[in-house]
């Protein structure tokens, strides 16, 4: 019996020894604590970790052997995973920094409460060095964050490029338009000069013949009147061409825009009455003066008003409105132009000329500002009025746009920046 028992004890010792060797062969540090948190057993990796003599380890409190830090601050004893495990949390796990072994490391500490008997409470603690893993994780996070940042940056760049591209396209369109206008202008001016003199000869010739025909030849007189009228009509076209081609420099001065519109309206009063057109004027109070070339802007308003009148052969209502306008409140093409040519914070005066006339078909609205485009019957328009108007308004760094509903009417919107210095 005693021998068997002895064999049994030897057996156990051998097993215990093997177990100790086996448990020391694993990478994780293992330690077994008593109910007070004092070391009862540990494996070789634990000793290497705390770097103490065996005598200093056995029986020592783990909290003293392994002072942990959390976020660079010493971990208070009550927050130590051992303390947590002993005080009701069966499995406490956490990662902490540890500086006891020279180089700071990050440890994952797992503490498990073990109840051997009613009286004997214990804790087993497994400690793993996760410094490398943490570094790798952090690197991964950093890379992910960088990737996210660069994705955001790339999207931002793409958006910026897109905006720049659109602006460039607009600028290019404006340049092409300006060049086209200049070329047409030059051509028009040349043609106009050449045509004016022959027209003069015809007119003088008609005057001469009128003297020869005499009042008794009614038919002859009528023919001459027709020739004279045709000359005048040609002259009007030539005059429009010259007007269009001659880029007169601005002579700007501060003006009350409402007064400029009223004056323009005054010049077409007779026609308004003849066509049975009601005029509604809605001019905003207290608008600051705009710095404009009064005569050139009058030409613009007269053009636009005459177009409105021609769109209402059977009468209607003409509305003239002025208001202060922020660039963002403008029709989109004017807002874009304003963004490009106005200085930050520059405000504008907005003028609307609205009619209740025949309107312009949707597919023709875009062409309305093109030179020589006209919806009027032959002989009634050269198609230069709006092209001239646009060129004048744009010289003022303003914009002009048109909205139309066929059968319901057209509204022309003109915006002018309120400038404090004289534009060059």
């Amino acid at each position: 019996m005693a021998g068997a028992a002895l064999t049994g004890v030897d057996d156990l010792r051998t097993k215990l020894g093997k177990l100790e060797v086996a448990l020391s062969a694993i990478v994780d540090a293992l330690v077994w604590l008593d109910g007070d948190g004092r070391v009862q057993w540990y494996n070789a990796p634990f000793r290497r970790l705390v770097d103490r003599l065996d005598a200093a380890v056995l029986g020592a409190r783990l909290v003293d052997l392994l002072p942990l830090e959390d976020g660079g601050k010493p971990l208070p004893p009550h927050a130590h995973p051992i303390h947590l495990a002993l005080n009701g949390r069966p499995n406490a796990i956490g990662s902490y920094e540890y500086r006891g072994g020279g180089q700071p490391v990050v440890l994952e500490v797992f503490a498990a409460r073990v109840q051997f008997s009613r009286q004997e409470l214990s804790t087993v603690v497994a400690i793993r060095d996760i410094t490398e893993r943490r570094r790798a994780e952090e690197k991964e996070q950093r890379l992910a964050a960088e990737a996210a940042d660069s994705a955001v940056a790339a999207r931002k760049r793409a958006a910026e490029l897109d905006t720049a591209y659109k602006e460039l396209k607009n600028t290019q369109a404006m340049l092409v338009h300006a060049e086209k206008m200049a070329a047409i202008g030059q051509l028009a001016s040349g043609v106009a000069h050449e045509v004016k003199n022959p027209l003069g000869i015809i007119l003088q010739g008609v005057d001469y013949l009128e003297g020869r025909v005499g009042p008794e030849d009614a038919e002859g007189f009528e023919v001459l009147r027709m020739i004279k009228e045709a000359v005048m009509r040609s002259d009007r076209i030539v005059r429009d061409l010259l007007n269009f081609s001659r880029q007169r420099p601005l002579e700007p001065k501060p003006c009350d825009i409402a007064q400029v519109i009223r004056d323009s309206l005054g010049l077409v009063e007779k026609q308004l009455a003849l066509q049975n057109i009601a005029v509604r004027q809605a001019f905003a109070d207290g608008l600051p003066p705009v710095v404009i070339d009064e005569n050139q802007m009058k030409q613009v308003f007269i053009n636009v008003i005459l177009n409105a009148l021609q769109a209402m052969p059977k009468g209607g209502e003409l509305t003239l409105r002025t208001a202060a306008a922020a660039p963002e409140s403008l029709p989109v093409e004017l807002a874009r132009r304003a963004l490009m040519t106005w200085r930050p914070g520059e405000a504008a005066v907005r003028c609307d000329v609205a009619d209740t006339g025949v309107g312009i078909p949707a597919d023709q609205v875009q062409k309305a500002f093109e030179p020589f485009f006209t919806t009027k019957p032959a002989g009634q328009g050269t198609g230069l009025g709006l092209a001239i108007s646009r060129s004048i308004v744009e010289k003022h760094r303003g914009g002009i746009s048109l909205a139309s509903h066929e059968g319901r009417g057209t509204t022309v919107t003109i915006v002018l920046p309120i400038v404090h210095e004289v534009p060059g």
Partner: protein
Amino acid sequence: MTKKRILLIDDERDLCLVMKLNLERTGTYDVAVAYSGPEGLERAEAELFDLIITDFNMPGMDGGVVLRSLKAMRPQAPVVLCSVYHDDVTAITAAVQREADGLINKPIDHAQLLRTIEQALANGTEG
């Protein structure tokens, strides 16, 4: 009543001829024509005219130079400028406009031409 002598300077020959016909038909004017600025100045130096009409846009010598030379040579003779530019005559500088005794736009309407001439002559007489 003696006829008033007018010198008409314009590089457009037919225009000059038909204007001459129209002006002379009134029975009031006697018209000489010159087809360029230098030719006009030569005529004006050699003869006396009551009034001179000159085109503004001429090759070689423009109406402004002709006007100033005429004013230097014959300060008494009123000068009327014609131009293809309408109404405001912006191509003609303000200074030149002030020096001219009349402005008329092309194509020239006969009735208007007569009015401009009469006015220029009347002003000249007063001055």
